[in-house]
């Protein structure tokens, strides 16, 4: 059975701190790994990773994938209160009948205090 596990479940930090969120996976026919940020209802896309060792970066956020050890990390530097959200990791697997099925991890709830 496909599995995506995120840790920690929740995290409380202060503004300016750096955080690292973890995502490990076990899926057959891996295609890509995606990170989303969910503040209210709709998850918003952050990154898609397909290759090992290549860091994706957007402002204070960065992410990297290790396909050998089957995990990814999402780093947020100089955190701000606006970073408070649930961060979701999802794995996209190759499928004959549905080209883009995502299996989500349980999420990490991040709270950034002023």
């Amino acid at each position: 059975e496909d599995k995506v596990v995120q840790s920690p479940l929740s995290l409380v930090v202060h503004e300016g701190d750096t955080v690292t969120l973890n995502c490990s996976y076990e899926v057959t026919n891996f295609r890509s790994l995606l990170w989303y940020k969910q503040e209210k209802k709709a998850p918003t896309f952050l990154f898609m990773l397909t290759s090992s060792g290549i860091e994706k970066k957007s402002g204070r956020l960065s992410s990297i994938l290790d396909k050998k050890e089957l995990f990814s990390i999402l780093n947020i530097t100089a955190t701000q209160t606006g970073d408070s959200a649930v961060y979701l990791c999802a794995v996209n697997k190759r499928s004959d009948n549905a080209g883009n099925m995502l299996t989500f991890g349980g999420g990490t709830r991040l709270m950034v205090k002023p």
Partner: protein
Amino acid sequence: SAVISQKPSRDICQRGTSLTIQCQVDSQVTMMFWYRQQPGQSLTLIATANQGSEATYESGFVIDKFPISRPNLTFSTLTVSNMSPEDSSIYLCSVYRTGDVEQYFGPGTRLTVT
């Protein structure tokens, strides 16, 4: 990007009734999906809505409980039938277009069953 709207945005329903949720996209999309997010949980794929044919359901979800329609490439409905309090969740429509990097999510429908 794809702009997705869902109706209703929220509803409170009595047990035993049914609710139909609509998902409208501003452009033709390859794939449309329905997800459920129970309180405090991550997203779980209910089914893939196939245009012109029956939806493809994930393990644990059946057509009698969650009938889905997709009459064209921009619209889909999900019905939650014979509701019970356990159906209280956020229901999210998601779309994917061939060639896009990300999968887009609608704003969600928050359903409470009393």
